[in-house]
């Protein structure tokens, strides 16, 4: 399978989007897309897409707990996969971490974090990218400095 034995370029090609949660924005109709698209499906040739970096904030739109995975993810089971609606509009699929399955709710606020996605067998590459965790702003209560 591609995931367990493919070459480096396949992973390298999508690295920037996966590391920084980059999508596309159509300047004509102001629609944001994830994953990035070369062409806006609404405006097609009349549209113009540019890159956009999402804030990483969003809400859980749906979720599941996986108890049977493909081989590359067996060591992480059980793990949570969620569909997250970003504040900027598009939905993103990834794992939800730092959260017990019983505490998960549709509508729960989450934020992107940078984590390991999987490791290839036999000393192959280790892939990193965004996952989501419950949004926690409790630190702000005692913080009187300026948020830069």
């Amino acid at each position, binding site marked *: 399978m591609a995931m367990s034995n493919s070459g480096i370029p396949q992973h390298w090609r999508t690295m920037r989007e996966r590391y920084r949660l980059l999508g596309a924005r159509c300047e004509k109709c102001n629609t944001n897309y994830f994953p990035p698209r070369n062409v806006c499906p609404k405006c097609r040739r009349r549209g113009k897409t540019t890159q956009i970096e999402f804030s990483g904030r969003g809400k859980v739109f*749906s979720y599941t707990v996986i108890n049977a995975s*493909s081989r590359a993810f067996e060591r992480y089971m059980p793990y949570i996969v969620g569909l997250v609606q970003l504040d900027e509009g598009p939905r993103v699929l990834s794992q939800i971490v730092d959260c017990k399955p019983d505490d998960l709710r549709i509508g729960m606020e989450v934020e992107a974090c940078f984590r390991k996605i999987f490791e290839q067998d036999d000393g192959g590459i280790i892939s990193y990218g965004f996952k989501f965790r419950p949004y926690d702003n409790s630190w702000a209560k005692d913080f009187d400095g300026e948020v830069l």
Partner: protein
Amino acid sequence: MGTTEFGELWDKGLKDLAWEAGVKAVEAAGIGGKDIEYIVFGNMSGGLFVGQEHVAALVADFMGLNSTPATRVEAACASGGAAFLQAYMAVASGMYDIVVAGGVEKMTDVGAGQAAAILSGAMDYEWEAYFGATFPAVYALMARRYMHEYGLKSDTLAKVAVKNHYHGSLNPLAHFRNRITEDEALSSPMVADPLRRYDCCPVSDGAACTILAPLDVARKYTDTPIVIRAVAQASDTLSLLGREDLCTLRATVKAAGKAFDEAKLSRKDVDVVEVHDCFTIAELLALEDLGFCKKGEAAGLYGEGQTYVGGELPVNTDGGLKAGGHAVGATGIKQIVEVTRQLRGEAKNGRQVEGAEIGLAHNVGGTGATAVVAILSRR
């Protein structure tokens, strides 16, 4: 038309399965192999399941028809349905008279984890499977959302499985022929919450074959040709990310609308239905998206046996994908074979829908990026 048994068939390879279904189809149609002008075969991933690409020419060769043009069609789990549309177009265009539409998949030579990885190629690899999503997981995301929006309970999902296992018990070629209870379904292990083992179809080996011809040609071979009233296909985003509504398969809605328009029939005319129940939730979504009930109301069809043989709208009379089995590239054709059996009155063991005149088959690829709807009638 004909199918092999669906199941874990360790002693049969890809060629054996395709050949067996082909022989059954040719014998049932009373045609000679040399009458066949074109072969279309659905196959999702011979390359990854058994290391074999170029499947259609291989199949043609082992059917003893090695100069007959043969093409493989791939649309994930809708490969069979898509092959059926290609064969239909080949006949309708007037280019060929006698065309084979088949499908085959040999899935059980690999382990469960590898099969899961191969099947996850039917979604967006880079932005879904890459992050750990499996096939049951993406349908679980749909199921969870549907529960949230429409208040669906797990016991309705269990009722779908119980019904399909009951129909499977009447089908000697089904992968699972055991009946189950709602309690068994509800206490089976969780695969991807809220979907349990009995919400998921199996990974099967199998093949199916049909033969298409213009009606006047078909009448030379049989007194009971089944008429293809419409075949329609539609596409949608490959991933769930771009779907506004997780509780509907837009490709199904589009393909069904087009098929019913073309056939000049209404939903009420349909006597028997085969839908793509790769997961129990998918059967509920399908009945709504095909227009047999309103969105959010499919659970209402599972209270009093309406979807059983003998009910108002018998669904998946061969056990569907859930119990009948899901050999991905063959499934779309297997559905056509079951509808044809029903319309000819040839379904045995108490699963014949009495007086079935019009039937519908609904085949889905991935999470709904491809949908094919075919409507057939007895005259």
